[in-house]
Structures are given as C-alpha cells and as structure tokens.
C-alpha cells in the first residue's frame, strides 16, 4: 500500500473514488432485497414524473392506476380484471416461449415475428376453412398450423446459427418484419376495402369457447399449463440440462457429448412453437381479428420479462404482472388526463432501466475507498 505519499505524488497516482469487487455467492435474500428496492425506487421515480406531468396528487394517481388494472366499483362484471389477466397470460406465454432459447444464450429477438406468424397461420385457417369444417376440428387445425408456422420462423435462424454461426440476434430481428409484411399482404387479400385490420366480421369461425361464461378463461388455463410444463422441462428433464450446459459453455457441451447443433435447433423449434401458440391465443382466443400490430411489441417486452426473471418461469409470473398492471394502469392515467397513451411505454422503460441497472449491484459490491488516516492528520 502507498501509505506515505506526500500530497503531490498522491495527485499523480490518484486512486479512484470507489472500487468494485465481485460478490461471491449472493444469498437469495440479498438478491431479492436489491430487486425489490430497485422496483420501489423506479415506482417512486415514475410517480414523481406522473405528478409533474399531470399535476394530480400521488394518491389519486395510484388509485387511478389500480382502477385501470383491476376495475372500479362500477365494473361489477370484473371486465377490467379479466382483461388484465388475459394480457398477463399472453405476455407470460411469450416470455415462457423465449426462455429456453435464452437459457441457451441464443438471442432470439424474433419472438414478435414468431407470434405474428402464428397469428397469421391461425387467421388464414379461420379465413379459408371457417364454416367449411366444424369448429372443434377447425380449432385443432389452427393449433397445428400456428405451431408449425412458429416453428418454421424459429428454426430457420437456428439452422443457420447451428451450421454457419450466422448472427441470430440480427437474423431473428429481420424475420419480424418479414412476418409483419406477410400479414399486411394477407390483410389486403382478405379485406378488399384496404383497412388495416381484418376483424371478427370476416373471421367468424374457430373462436375459442367461453368457459363458465368467461371468454378469456380458456386462454388463462392454457398458459397456466404451459408455465408448469416449461418449468418442468427446464428444471427436471435431460433436454433442460442440455440447454443449460450449451448456454454456459458450448465447448463443455461438446466435450461431454452433447450434440450442440441438435440442441440449438430443437430448442428454437420449441421457442418458436410456443410463440405460435401465443399467436393462436391472440387471434383465436382474444381478438378474433388480425392486424400487423396485434403483438404490440410484446415479443420484445417478453425478452425483458424473461431476462429479468433470470429465466425462472415462476418469477416470470411476478414480472409479467408488474409490467402489465403498470401498463394498463398508466394507460388509464393518460386517458384520464387527456395525454397520449404512450405514457405507459415511458413508465415501462423507466422501470426496466432501474431493474436492468440493479443487476449490477447484485453481482458486484461498490465500496468507497477509505481515505488514509495518516494523510488526514498531516493535512490537519
């Protein structure tokens, strides 16, 4: 240690104000505490911004957010709550879909496109076969078609990644826009009037049945089952183990005899297929219409949800709830004050920045460098 420097030489070898050390094993408690602190901080920050923009008092803003997400006293049918649950289900489904690939360190930024192509496949089935085959059979065909379409959109980049190392982030990103333009093409073909959605008046058949009078319940149940399956698949099967090994180190995987190419392609097929199912739920179960903005950026939000939950399907339920509730709540705030509905995107962005930033403090410890006591005495 450089204890006996005079102030002059100390200036030359100035130590930084703080230094960073990597934490060893982080206890679950610390990690959770840091994350909760980050989320609380971000919510306070969002609150301040909302107050500045709307001039309303914080309590009434939080009440508005709550009512926007869960409904108010007039909403006796719990329509808001069901819509929120439905949104959570769809986002969760897409987040689960991207997770196996991410765990393998395959950066699939194409979930948006994989969902959309699933939507498109569903809509094509409804458009061409609706009324010709009975509804149960139609739904079965829709399922097969949407899964196949999603698998195709997922496997194509995976194939090139596995054999030639083609950059998957950029490849999958481009596939999104191919899917969007294909939907635009379908819209033009299906609806000659040139509108930018094809709605329930054209896609009349193949709607999911309502369970117990709740039209979204089936969607929610399907996603609950998928959550459990993905959890088991990743945690308790050989495939899940292979995915983690490939993600940690491809060389290790090769050394212990895992066929890396096969794992990459298989995992992306699963990812794409699940995205396709999300597309099916969106078109067949929820909107009964198709438009190129139907996925509404959820393919990208899902990437963040999955990453924030550290690829743990159960944690994902929490992160999805947080984002969806905030999204619906802030949309309500913006409509109440006549502001643009993109307000929710700003708040989502801020919360994400905080959570992304807090990961650093989970992995590293920041310490202020202590001033040297001897020098202090000299200075005094």
């Amino acid at each position, binding site marked *: 240690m450089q204890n006996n420097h005079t102030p002059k030489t100390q200036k030359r070898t100035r130590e930084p104000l703080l230094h960073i050390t*990597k934490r060893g094993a982080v206890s679950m408690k610390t990690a959770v505490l840091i994350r909760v602190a980050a989320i609380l901080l971000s919510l306070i920050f969002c609150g301040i911004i909302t107050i500045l*923009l709307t001039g309303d008092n914080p309590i009434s803003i939080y009440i508005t957010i709550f009512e926007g997400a869960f409904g108010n006293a007039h909403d006796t049918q719990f329509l808001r709550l069901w819509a929120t649950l439905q949104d959570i289900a769809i986002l969760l489904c897409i987040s689960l879909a991207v997770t196996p690939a991410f765990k393998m360190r395959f*950066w699939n*930024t194409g979930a948006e496109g994989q969902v959309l192509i699933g939507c498109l496949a569903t809509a094509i089935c409804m458009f061409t076969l609706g009324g010709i085959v009975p509804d149960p059979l139609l739904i079965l065909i829709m399922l097969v078609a949407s899964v196949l379409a999603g698998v195709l959109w997922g496997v194509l980049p995976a194939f*090139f990644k596995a054999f*030639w*190392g*083609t*950059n998957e*982030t*950029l*490849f999958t*990103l*481009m*596939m*999104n*826009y*191919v899917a*969007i*333009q*294909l939907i*635009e*093409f379908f819209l*033009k*073909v299906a609806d000659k009037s*040139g509108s930018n959605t094809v709605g329930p008046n054209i896609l009349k058949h193949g709607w999911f049945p309502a369970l117990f009078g709740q039209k979204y319940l089936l969607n929610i149940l399907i996603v609950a089952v998928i959550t459990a399956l993905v959890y088991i698949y990743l945690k308790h099967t050989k495939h899940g183990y292979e995915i983690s090994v490939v993600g940690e180190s491809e060389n290790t995987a090769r050394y212990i005899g895992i066929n890396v190419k096969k794992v990459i392609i298989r995992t992306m097929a699963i990812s794409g297929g699940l995205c396709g199912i999300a597309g099916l739920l969106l078109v067949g179960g929820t909107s009964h219409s198709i438009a190129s903005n139907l996925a509404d*950026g959820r393919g*990208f*939000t899902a*990437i*963040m949800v999955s*990453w*924030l939950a550290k690829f743990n399907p159960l944690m994902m339920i929490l992160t999805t709830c947080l984002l969806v509730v905030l999204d619906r709540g802030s949309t309500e705030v913006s409509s109440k004050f*006549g*502001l*643009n509905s*993109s*307000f*929710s*995107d*700003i708040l*989502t*962005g*801020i919360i*994400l*920045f905080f959570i*992304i*930033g807090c*990961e*650093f403090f989970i*992995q*590293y410890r920041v310490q202020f460098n202590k001033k040297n006591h001897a020098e202090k005495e000299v200075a005094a």
Partner: protein
Amino acid sequence: MFPIVQFIQRAILQGTPLLFGSTGEILTEKSGNLNLGIPGIMYIGGICGVIGGFFYQSTAGIKLNPFLAIFIPLLCSLLGSFLASLLYCFLTVTLRANQNVTGLALTTFGVGFGNFFGGSLIKLVDSEVPSIALTKIAKIYKTTLPFADSLGWFGDLFLSYGFMVYLAVVLAIIVALVLKKTRIGLHLRAVGENPATADAAGINVTRYKYASTCLGGMIAGLGGLYYVMDYTNGVWSNNGFGDRGWLAIALVIFATWKPMIGILGSYLFGGLYILFNYIPVSMQTMPLIQMLPYVVTILVLVLVSIRKSRESQPPAALGLNYYREDR
C-alpha cells in the same frame, strides 16, 4: 416513361434517415456495442428537435432567424440522443448490463417518449395551436441552393435537397475515413474485435465504447430530426417514423459494417420503400415489395456467414460486454 430522375430523388429523400441511422449504428457496433436502442434514439432525436423548434417558433413569433431556426432544433436533437446513448452506455459499459435487453428497453422508452410528447406537447404547454406544425422551420431546413432549379435534371438529382441530406453523406464518409485511415479508428476496431487485447495494448476500452456509442447515437438521432424537419415538412405524427430504425439496423448488416456501402444501400432501401408507387403492381402485392429489404438483408447475413470472408464479418465482440476481471 419511367420517371427515373424523380424516382432517384425520392429514393434519396427516403433513404437519408436510414443513412443517418446506419452510420451511427456502424460507429457504435465497431466498438462492440450492439445498440438495439437505435430506433428509440431516432424517435428521441426527432421529438427533441420538435420540442426545441416548437418553443423557438412560439417565442420568436412571425419572423424567424434562419440560423437559430436550424441551430436550436439541431442542438436539442443532439442533446436528446446524446443523453439516451449515455444512458445505454452507463447501463451496458459501467453497470455491465445485457446489451440486448438494455437496447430493447431503450427502444420501448424512446418510441414511447416520442409518441407521448408528440401527442401531448400541445396539451402540456396549454398552447392554442391545433397541432404541432413547424412548417416555417421546415422550410428553412429545406432551403436548397438558389440555382438548383435552373440546372434541369442535374439540379434535380444532385442539388435539390435540404442540407441534412448532404450532411448524412458527409458524416458517412467521415466515419468511413476515421475507421479506416486513422489511429483512433484502428483503436476503435480493436476494441470491437477483441477488447482484452486492446486493453492490454493500453487502449482505454471504456472511453472508446462511451465515445463511439454516444457519437453514433447522436448521428442516428439526426435521422429522426431529418425525418420530421425535412421529410414530413415539420409535421410530427405518432409512429410516423415507423420501422425505419430497424431498417437502419438491417442496413448495417447489408453494408457489412462499411459506411460507404451504407450510402448506396440506404438509397437502395429507400428506393425499395417507394418502388410500389412507380411500377404497375396492384395494391395487394405492395407489402411483398416492402418486405424485400428485410429478405435481402437476411440473405446478405447468411451469405456472409457461410462465405466466412474475413472482410465482411461483424465485429468479433459484438454484443458482448467486456469485463476486465473475467479474463
């Protein structure tokens, strides 16, 4: 007859935002930062220019000083995109966060930021005007050389644009020269290819990453400013900028990380964007033509990776953060 001059002219107008975006992203990616926040940054650059211009136009009244009318929006735009890129750098370089996630979050935030202020600015400042129309400022932005009209097709093709179209080309050339011919460029490429080696050679990796990402973001932000002030005549419409930010990222791949090819590529993509106006196709096939830039980009990406030519590979450390301690 096919109006070739008009077509090229409009392709250049359409391609300029892409050129700004891709030049900025090439500079960023050369440092190993895959900034997927570029679409968001372009929105931020655009809306910050609009906010600056809006306040200037409402305070200055009828008579605008041409210099200030250009300078204030330009400065606001640069400042906005600088701050957004700084946030990205802080999260990915200093806090070592995942680049893809940070970039996507920045895009969500940036697009939301643009649309929110574009849609609510008038309400927030209690202004009487019905919509944001910075037509006077846009007119100044679009000022062309006085003798451009008198030179026939030559004038139309080369001299009929506002200054930002030329700025885009000049910036692309400067970036290309800096990357290829200077020591700074060599260091920057070293950081993007192998940061550990660069660090060992005494290059300040963090400083290079910060500088190139912030500068790249500012250049990309100008694309947003150009779009509002020049292309749409000062009228902001929500989501009007569309997917051009992603197209700019596609263009980076298409140009195989070379800004000079980016110039031609951007005009080519611009041409594909408007081609349906010029060829006798039905409305139905229009989306299929708009799909072409993306399909072509995928093909380039695949071909480049199969051919393994060393000249046209992505920077080797693209998308990976550098931890000095993890070596």
